[in-house]
């Protein structure tokens, strides 16, 4: 027997894109149904942003304990730090459960009907759901919102299974490996690789490109590179992976065609994510695509009337806050408001240690766009707060137009710089000039003073350097 439901808005996918769209739609009085096959919160809350940051925090704390074990410069000494990884994972799971449950409560409060199960698209207005309870549900809707997110890319010569895991497996280890090989030096591979290293695991990273964090410029990645080397993570850049066997480990071929094996009892493949476009009838809609992504306009409309798409499904940057912002726009547009998704800047944060933040254009990007611009950096080595936090690595950099000093971009690398992203993004959205930031009083002593000093320096008169 099939149950029939009719609604105004049907959302497929309960990740940050889908659940935010559904909550906002509910708030606006739009009858809304949300279908989710796994857990509410999607990749982000259950196997992505949140659990990775939890593990990174635990790893940071353990690393500090290890640091003090030798008798630290702070005068602190501890004996024999040990880690119960099962407890760490339980703690992390507790956070995930609370957040996923919280999303459920928010959806209920907004009046959204949630169906647990996998959606199959019949046509642009009809979706069949094989619900978890075994019952089939047919949902007819006026608006269909696709928010099915993304999934890890698998390497044919290194299929997931056993000791070869994706980020999902790496975030819920039953035990810690002795030797981990990370394939891919993008942000996910490095965040997790560094965390494992801090937990005491021997870590090697294999990356096909000649550098880590391709996409960030080298000045920005240098402090991360330094930290990797200092912590003993072994980097194999310009190398490709050939396969894996339990006896020898990961087979690697270098740029010069040398072949060698990296011993490993676990392998994390983190070579990217691809939009989830297959297996649930999406193809049948024959939507216009933008490469591997579903193409959308500034209101997140696809090429088919009444069908919308948001989040990782729709392109780069594949980040949770982009998905959420798009979700809000779609709900408000459907509610009849005039809205567009046209941010001036989307921040990107890499939670390595040191952290990396990029907002707006880098000097290279600005030049490539033909803009006559100036840039200036201020190092944390000259920042008092950074010294008191033992965090003097890194810098803040600003990029601005040379003629009118309009700020085009911010980059920062350093411990704790993630929280500077709010000021960076706001300054760009507000159309701030260098003088605006230089003329704003920044609290002493904070890392944020480096933001003001970078602006001052671009104007030719930094005080503290």
């Amino acid at each position, binding site marked *: 027997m099939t149950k029939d439901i009719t609604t105004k808005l049907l959302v497929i996918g309960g990740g940050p894109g889908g659940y935010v769209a559904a909550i906002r739609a509910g708030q606006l009085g739009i009858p809304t149904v949300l279908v989710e096959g796994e857990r509410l919160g999607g990749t982000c809350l259950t196997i992505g942003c949140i659990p990775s940051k939890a593990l990174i925090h635990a790893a940071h704390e353990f690393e500090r304990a290890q640091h003090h074990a030798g008798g630290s410069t702070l005068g602190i000494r501890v004996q024999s730090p040990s880690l119960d990884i099962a407890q760490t994972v339980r703690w992390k799971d507790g956070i995930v459960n609370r957040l996923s449950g919280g999303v459920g409560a928010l959806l209920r409060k907004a009046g959204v009907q949630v169906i647990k199960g996998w959606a199959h698209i019949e046509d642009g207005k009809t979706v069949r759901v094989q619900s978890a309870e075994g019952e089939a549900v047919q949902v007819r809707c006026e608006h269909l919102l696709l928010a099915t997110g993304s999934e890890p890319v698998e390497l044919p010569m290194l299929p997931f299974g056993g000791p070869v895991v994706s980020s999902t497996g790496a975030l819920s280890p039953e035990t810690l490996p002795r030797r981990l090989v990370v394939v891919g030096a993008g942000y996910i591979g490095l965040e997790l690789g560094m965390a494992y290293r801090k937990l005491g695991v021997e870590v090697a990273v294999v990356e096909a490109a000649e550098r880590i964090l391709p996409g960030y410029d080298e000045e920005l990645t240098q402090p991360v590179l330094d930290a990797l080397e200092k912590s003993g993570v072994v980097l194999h850049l310009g190398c490709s992976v050939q396969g894996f066997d339990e006896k020898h480990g990961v087979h690697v071929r270098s740029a010069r065609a040398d072949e060698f094996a990296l011993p490993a009892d676990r392998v994390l493949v983190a070579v990217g994510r691809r939009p989830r476009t297959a297996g649930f009838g999406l193809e049948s809609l024959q939507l216009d695509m933008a490469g591997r992504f579903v193409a959308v306009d500034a209101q997140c409309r696809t090429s088919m009337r009444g069908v919308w798409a948001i989040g990782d499904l729709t392109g780069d940057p594949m980040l949770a806050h982009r998905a959420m912002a798009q979700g809000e726009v779609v709900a408000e547009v459907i509610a009849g408001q*005039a809205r567009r998704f046209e941010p001036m800047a989307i921040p990107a944060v890499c939670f390595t240690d040191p952290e990396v933040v990029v907002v707006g254009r880098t000097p290279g990007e600005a030049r490539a766009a033909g803009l006559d611009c100036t840039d200036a950096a201020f190092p944390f080595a000259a920042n008092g707060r950074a010294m008191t936090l033992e965090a003097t690595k890194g810098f803040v950099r600003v990029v601005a137009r040379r003629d009118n000093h309009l700020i085009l971009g911010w980059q920062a690398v350093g411990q704790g710089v993630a929280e500077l992203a709010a000021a960076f993004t706001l300054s760009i959205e507000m*159309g701030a000039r260098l003088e*605006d930031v230089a003329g704003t009083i920044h609290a002493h002593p904070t890392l944020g003073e480096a933001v003001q000093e970078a602006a001052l320096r671009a104007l030719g008169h930094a005080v503290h350097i």
Partner: protein
Amino acid sequence: RPLASPAVRQRALDMGVELRFVHGSGPAGRILQADLDAHAASGGQAPAQGP
């Protein structure tokens, strides 16, 4: 793209005003709330609002 803060952009959308046609009197040519007010008061080139 016309330089205007999120609040100004949103209000322009609500008013049905294309920011391209609004003079920005702020630093670096930034369109301010007051510029929107002036544009509306002058009748602007704003297309009439929908029903």
